């Protein structure tokens, strides 16, 4: 009879210290050796991980009230503006915000050495942060300005809330033009000089549960070194299937997650301020997601190796910026990780912008947490839309 397990059964085993937990890498080898049926019955949870630059990250902060009170209208943290149009002393600091005096790309390519992502890393590293705020003065909030220093421990709440993280799959970026270009996937040399990609492939969370059979609202995850939750689908959640021009399927892609957790328990090792030359500032985020092996189908998906997972090759000098729906073919993560691929008949060196060793460390850490009984699975109260939902991207007119 086919194996069927429930979250409750697995959590009971975790509490008793009896759960069998393996990383996605380990699962691939096990399934090759023992087959899906046996492994599904033997293994309870598979852990995944990813550690790469993730824009659409940020943190909600509540600073506490000053004496006299101020209704913060504009607020800056280490000269980086945070958005405060929500309440008197609440603000949202976004990972891609840069200081107002940043030269940006005036002298191209700009360096973007410090931004919102760096503020978040400094906060979580418990460094002192310069807080400056101005207000317009009201009867109940009379103060008009404040300049002080805060640390994450001085303020009431610091909640990491990332509206779009953990992209299911991502492009392999190349440059067909005759000049170097500077992208959010790093520096791309002219005339197909190199190729950059950014997922952990066989360790990547949403490539291991591609049809969202287990990941949903309430899934408990490793987030930034602490515990967080999936709270919704991410923005730009387009969980479709990639096809080439001949209609051949190259796997699931385009799903994203919205995640949240207590920044105060996270770590600067797993939330790293990031500067992309010529592009901007962002935050590199560590995310790990446990996948319960409830049945064989889930196990089969989770056991996909780098040789079975594909990324589309996209030209970032023209097709990407001009929203031209064309690619130069698909390439497997096994090829990408080998250090070279062939594009248009030319051998092109490859490099990642997400860290595979750190992704492996995340999957290993999450495995330990579950084995020790410190981390129970969160059963989703609602699963996220998958490829069957037929969601299509809108294009902004204008």
């Amino acid at each position: 009879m086919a194996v069927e397990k429930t979250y409750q059964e697995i959590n009971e085993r975790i509490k008793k210290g009896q759960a069998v937990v393996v990383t996605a890498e380990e699962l691939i080898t096990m399934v090759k050796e023992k087959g899906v049926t046996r492994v599904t019955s033997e293994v309870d949870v598979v852990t995944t991980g990813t550690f790469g630059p993730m824009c659409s990250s940020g943190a909600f902060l509540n600073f506490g009230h000053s004496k006299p009170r101020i209704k913060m209208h504009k607020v800056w943290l280490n000269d980086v503006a945070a958005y405060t149009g929500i309440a008197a002393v609440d603000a949202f600091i976004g990972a891609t915000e840069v200081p107002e005096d940043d030269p940006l790309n005036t002298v191209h390519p700009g360096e973007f050495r410090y931004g919102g992502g760096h503020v978040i890393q400094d906060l979580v590293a418990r460094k002192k942060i310069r807080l400056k705020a101005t207000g317009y003065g009201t009867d109940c909030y009379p103060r008009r300005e404040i300049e002080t220093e805060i640390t994450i421990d001085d303020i009431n709440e610091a909640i990491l809330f990332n509206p779009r993280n953990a992209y299911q799959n991502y492009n392999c970026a190349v440059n067909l033009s005759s000049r170097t270009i500077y992208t959010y996937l790093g520096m791309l040399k002219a005339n197909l000089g190199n190729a950059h990609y950014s997922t952990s492939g066989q360790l990547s969370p949403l490539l291991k549960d591609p049809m969202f059979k287990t990941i949903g609202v309430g899934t408990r995850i490793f987030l930034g070194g602490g515990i967080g939750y999936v709270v919704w689908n991410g923005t730009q959640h387009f969980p479709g299937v990639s096809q080439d021009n001949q209609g051949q399927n190259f796997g699931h892609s385009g799903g994203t997650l919205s995640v949240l957790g207590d920044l105060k328990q996270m770590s600067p090792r797993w939330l790293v301020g990031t500067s992309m030359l010529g592009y901007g500032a962002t935050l590199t985020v560590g995310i790990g997601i446990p996948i319960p092996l409830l049945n064989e189908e889930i196990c089969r998906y989770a056991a996909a190796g780098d040789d079975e997972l594909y990324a589309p090759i996209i030209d970032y000098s023209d097709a990407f910026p001009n929203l031209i729906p064309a690619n130069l073919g698909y390439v497997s993560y096994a090829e990408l990780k080998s250090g070279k691929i062939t594009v248009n008949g030319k051998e092109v060196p490859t490099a990642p912008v997400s860290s595979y060793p750190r992704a492996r460390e995340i999957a290993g850490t999450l495995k330990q947490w579950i084995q020790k009984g410190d981390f129970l699975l969160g059963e989703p109260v609602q699963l996220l839309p998958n490829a069957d939902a037929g969601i299509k991207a809108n294009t902004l007119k204008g």
Partner: protein
Amino acid sequence: MSSKKVVLRFGADLADQPIIYKLVKDYDLVINILKANVNPQKEGTLVMDISGKNIEQGIEYLRQLGVRVQSLTEEIIQNGEKCVSCGACTDICPSGALYMDRPDMLVRFNSDRCVVCHLCVKACPMKAMEVRF
């Protein structure tokens, strides 16, 4: 055989002359040019690795011509605290000093191969590649 990294600075009057050829032919030196640049005023800068028995004589010849010769004291270091082994530098590095150690995908730095071009210092998203004087 001894080896030395030097920075040469040429005035506009020297930038068009075959000086390096003389170092090879007359002084029997092995030259590896790491970086070369001529600015709009036609002043030249050249960073090279030289090896051979007659390094000192060769350098003396350059000085007599009016070339300023300095030892290359600048070096690039990989800050192990900051590097997350993302890999974005490895295909940017022109000399292969930065490379991925497969299959672990750890970013390694072999400073002997570094030509101090500074590309990694700019391209590293974590600012983990640093210049030391």
